[in-house]
Structures are given as structure tokens and as C-alpha cells.
């Protein structure tokens, strides 16, 4: 009967969507593999243990923050403030150790908390004050950067204990600790997106906010939580970055949001909402990192790197548009 047909249709279209999402990820993974193979041949040192180690560490900051960004993008939002929030968290975290003498793990949590608070402000602006996420987080981008300069008096903060370096430079056996951090955050992100209410509601809000609201989802609470998570991960990423240079750099992260958004989008997250996965984002983050690493190994000018990354983003978004149109056509 009609209701059975509708259920089948719905089931069919959900399956199509998931399949198409998987294809998108496959495309990104394919690109990653192609670039990897190309670099292995083009540069004799690309496959060395040292280089792969470096790539892992270099990707950590972007990957960790990009997982938070994925959650935001799934809700059809955006968080432009992650670079500034990372810098703010980094400098405050280092100041906690250098000036207040707090132990390293406490300071790392502290930095993450700073990020979470910025995320809370973003979330409230979006869900309660009803601001467009672009505008709200754009404001936070400048506010956080300004605060970073105020707190540091525009000078870098040094004086963290050398044990702080472990976060961004340490190893556990053969695995760099930043890579472990990527794994940790990725697993947590995967669980949140696929097994928790927050994850389900995020997809729902992103696909159709009104429908989500009408079906009783407490929008304010969950939308705010999404931005808090993004902010917290930006804070944590900022602490990893600070650990790599054992200092709080007020100039850090300018333009970082672009690499982070690129990672999410290349990995299949759609800026229209409702789409995005942790695995896809990781693929995107590593693709961007490979392009940057490979460019230096092959002695390519910095500016060409930017052009390449921009073109890759275009291709990813065009593919996403094409995929959505095919999907919409198929379910008619």
C-alpha cells in the first residue's frame, strides 16, 4: 500500500544517500592515494620514516580542529573563529604554566576549556540570539584575536616546562603523540556522530532545521553543544600547536580556518548541512598536509601550494554539488 511504498522509498533514498556519501569518501581517499603514490615516486625521501612521522605531527592540529568543524558543518553552520581561538587557548594555556605554575596536564585542559568557552559564546549567539553562524563566528575570530594580543601584550609567551613538549613532539613507541591525539579525537568524534543523540540531532538539524524543531529536538541545547565542541577542539589543537614550539604565539593560526574547512569539505562534508564524516575529514586533512609537505620536498613555491589547495577545494565542492543533484533526481 501507499505507506509501505513510502517506507521503501524512504529506505531506498537513505541507502542511496549513504552510498553516495561513501562514494564521495572513496573519491577523496582515491585522491589521497594518488597524491601519496605520486610523491613516493617524485621524491626519494617522501616514504622515509622521518618524513611520515613529520606528516603525522604536522597534520595533528588541522585534523583535530577539523573534526570539530565537521560537526558544525553537518548542522549547516560554519566556525570561522577556530584559528583565533586556537591562538588564544595556546597563549593562555602557556601562561597558565609559565606564570601560574600550573602542571602541564591541567594547563592543557585549561587551554581546551578556554576554547570551549569561546565555543559556548558562538553557540549562544547562533542558537539563542539567532545570529547567522558566519557572522557570529566571524565576530569571535576578531574578538579572540584581540584578546590574544591584550593578554600577551602582543609578545610571544615562553617559559613552559620542557615536559609540555611531549604533547606535540613526544612519542609512544614508534607513534608520535600528536598522531595518537588525532586517533583519540577521531574515535571520540566517530562515536559522537554515529552513536549519540547529539550526532543524530546534528545531522537532523543540518538536513532540515524546521523539521528538526517541529519534531521536538531541543535546538538551542544541541546547536550550542556543537559549537562548544568545535571551540574545545580548537583549544586543544591550539595547545598541540603551542607544544610544537613550546610557546604561546599570538600570531598563530591566522588563516588556519581555511585549511580546516578545506579538510572537512574535501572529506565530503556539505556546507548545506546534513553530510559529513570523521573518516572523510581525516582524509581531507591528510590530503592538505600531503600537498604542503610534498611541495617543500619538491621545492615548490609557497604560493603554488595555495593555488593547488584552492583548486582541490573547488573540485571537492563541485563533486558534492553534482552528487546532490544526482541524489535529488534519483529520488523523484
Amino acid at each position, binding site marked *: 500500500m501507499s505507506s509501505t511504498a513510502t517506507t521503501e522509498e524512504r529506505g531506498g533514498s537513505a541507502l542511496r544517500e549513504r552510498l553516495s556519501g561513501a562514494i564521495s569518501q572513496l573519491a577523496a581517499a582515491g585522491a589521497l592515494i594518488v597524491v601519496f603514490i605520486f610523491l613516493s615516486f617524485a621524491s626519494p625521501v617522501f616514504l622515509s620514516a622521518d618524513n611520515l612521522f613529520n606528516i603525522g605531527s604536522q597534520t595533528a592540529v588541522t585534523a583535530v580542529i577539523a573534526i570539530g568543524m565537521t560537526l558544525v558543518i553537518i548542522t549547516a553552520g560554519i566556525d570561522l573563529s577556530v584559528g583565533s581561538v586556537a591562538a588564544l587557548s595556546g597563549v593562555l594555556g602557556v601562561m597558565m604554566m609559565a606564570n601560574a605554575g600550573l602542571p602541564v596536564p591541567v594547563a592543557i585542559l585549561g587551554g581546551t576549556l578556554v576554547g570551549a568557552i569561546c565555543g559556548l559564546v558562538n553557540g549562544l549567539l547562533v542558537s539563542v540570539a539567532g545570529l547567522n553562524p558566519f557572522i557570529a563566528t566571524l565576530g569571535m575570530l576578531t574578538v579572540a584575536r584581540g584578546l590574544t594580543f591584550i593578554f*600577551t601584550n602582543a609578545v*610571544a609567551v615562553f617559559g613552559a616546562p620542557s615536559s609540555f613538549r611531549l604533547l606535540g*613532539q613526544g612519542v609512544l613507541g614508534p607513534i608520535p603523540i600528536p598522531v595518537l591525539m588525532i586517533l583519540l579525537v577521531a574515535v571520540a568524534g566517530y562515536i559522537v556522530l554515529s552513536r549519540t543523540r547529539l550526532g543524530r540531532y546534528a545531522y537532523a538539524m543540518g538536513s532540515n532545521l524546521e523539521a528538526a524543531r517541529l519534531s521536538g529536538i531541543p535546538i538551542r541545547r544541541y546547536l550550542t553543544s556543537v559549537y562548544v565542541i568545535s571551540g574545545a577542539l580548537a583549544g586543544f589543537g591550539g595547545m598541540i600547536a603551542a607544544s610544537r614550539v613550546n610557546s604561546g*604565539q*599570538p600570531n*598563530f593560526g591566522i588563516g588556519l580556518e581555511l585549511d580546516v574547512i578545506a579538510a572537512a569539505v574535501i572529506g565530503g562534508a556539505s556546507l548545506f548541512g546534513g553530510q559529513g564524516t570523521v573518516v572523510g575529514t581525516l582524509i581531507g586533512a591528510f590530503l592538505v598536509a600531503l600537498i604542503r609537505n610534498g611541495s617543500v620536498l619538491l621545492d615548490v613555491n609557497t604560493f603554488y601550494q595555495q593555488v593547488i589547495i584552492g583548486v582541490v577545494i573547488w573540485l571537492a565542492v563541485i563533486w558534492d554539488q553534482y552528487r546532490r543533484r544526482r541524489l535529488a533526481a534519483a529520488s523523484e
Partner: protein
Amino acid sequence: MRRRQVLAVLLAASLALVAAVACGAQVRESGGGGGSQGGGGGKGENAPVQLAVVPKAIGFDFWEQVRRGAECAAQKTSGQADVQWDGVTTETDVNGQVNLLQNFITQGVDGLVYAATDAKVLSKVTQSAKQQGVTVVNIDSGTEPQPPDVPVFATDNVAAAEQVPELIAKELGKEGGEVAFIPFQQGTVTNEQREEGFKNGLKKHPELELVAEQSSQSDYNKALQVTEDILTAHPDLDAIFAANEPGVLGAAEAVRQAGKAGDVVIIGWDASSEEVQGVSDGVISALVVQNPFKMGYDGTNAAIKIIREGAKVESEDTGSTIVTKDNLQDPKVQSVLNPSCENPPV
């Protein structure tokens, strides 16, 4: 239908408004008479001279020294000069600096003492300032063209950078070796000059081979990443020249993390306390140290002199010092590294 028409009218009106404002702004800039430097004959003795001192960006030790020099000069006038210090957050934010300077002009400062983030773009701002009777002095980086009555207090970066290959050659000896170069920002005068000097110097040392060149974009983290990758690509690298503070710190950190401290010669520029620590630790072989304090000090004094006396002040090479582990404790070197208003290196 009606709504669409209303929207079309609004769009047309706003486009017209934008066009009018844009044209209007141009007209205002080129008008305003042709005031010359110093407002012709000096300011009244009692009112303090209002100066805006603007670096390329805030957040680096180098510019902090400039600030101290400027404030020291103002302090020594016993209230006859007020220094306002402000800057954008990144040396690549040219538009931001333009806006900031224009705001200072509108605010009615008597003089602008600034370092241009982009030589060509900022020459228009200097022109505009002079037309409105504001005295202009450049520090660290001038403009292109440099008006003859706007003095520049800066390091002769070309000459200073030419010494770098000499230093590297001395460290590496006759066989020479592979060298990497970490510039910071194409398009700024200081970057171009240091690159020119360095490459001129390299020509005199054929035993040194330039194998890699990657910009740090004035970011410590970025410098760390590109140096890591350069070290991977060139495992036999013998020396690195990084042309400004974040580049040096990132390169030193990368060399340290790769366990090559002491094996790779690092020649750096500027002398933040972390860079100096690097010299003591033996990671950095030598630093080309400018005198940013003197730039701020002499630049501010020049602006005050032009405004009060209408005098003409000549540009000046504020000089450079090579700092190594051996001369670190020299009193002259110390006064450049740790300048203070009581003991200014001027």
C-alpha cells in the same frame, strides 16, 4: 512582481551609492591643498607633539624594541611629545595598516612614524598624509617612491645580508656545502633587500650551494614545518639562513627536534631573547642584529625636530651587529641586545 521590482530598485540604489562613495573618496584624497612637511615653520612650543608610531605588525620582539626606542625618545622630551603605538596583527595585512594610518591622519596626529608593510601601496598613504600637513618618517621599511623629505631610519639590509654567506663560509670551510634560505614575505622591502644581499654574497662563494628556499610567512609554526620538510628533503644540509625572527626560531626548533643541533649552521636575523638563548646553546651560530631601538628613537626624534623646527632630516643607516657566542657578553653587544632608556644604543 512588485517585490522583485522593489528589490531591483534597492540594488540599483545601493550600487549607485557605493559608486558615489568610491568616487567621492578619491576626490577627497587628491584635493586638500599641497601642504608640505612640518606645516611650515614649526608648531607652537607649548602643545605636545602628537605622534603615531606604527610598526609592520605587533607581536614580535623586534617591534617591541622599536616601541621602547620611540617611547624613550618621547620621554626624554619631558612631555613635549606624545607617542601612540598601534599596529595590525600580521605583517601581511597591508590593507589593515593602510586603514590604521588613515585613521591616525583623520584623528589629527602631527606626525606618523611608521614601517611600511608594502612599499608601493603605502607610498599613497605617505602622499595623502603630507597633503594634509602630517609629517611622515619611515622606520625599518620605506616606500616606493621614497619622497626626498621623508627620511628612513633603517638597517641597510642589503649590506647586512651580504655578510651572511661570509659567515657561513667561515663555519663550513673550503668544501662549503648545501644551504637553505627561509625568507618571510615577498613584496616587503626588507625581505627583498635581505634576499638580494644574501644572493649577492652567495655569488662570491661558489662552494655554497642554495638547495632550498621556502617562506616562513612570518609564522613560527610555519617555519618549523617547512624547515622540517627541508631537512627531510636534504639530509646533508649544512646551513640555513632565516631572514627574520619567527623564521629563525622555527628553523632552530626544527634542527633541535631532528637532533642536528650544532651540525647545521644557522644564521639568523634579529635578537629576541629566545634567539639569543639559541646562540648560547650553540644551536644558532650567529645573528645579524639590527638596532630597532635606535630606529624608534631616531625616527621619533626626527619627527619631533621636523614638526618643531621645520628642519630637514637625513635618512640614516641604523646599522647591524653580528652576534655570536664569542662576543655575546661584550658590553656594546649587550646594549644592542638589551637596550634601555638609561643606556640607549644610539
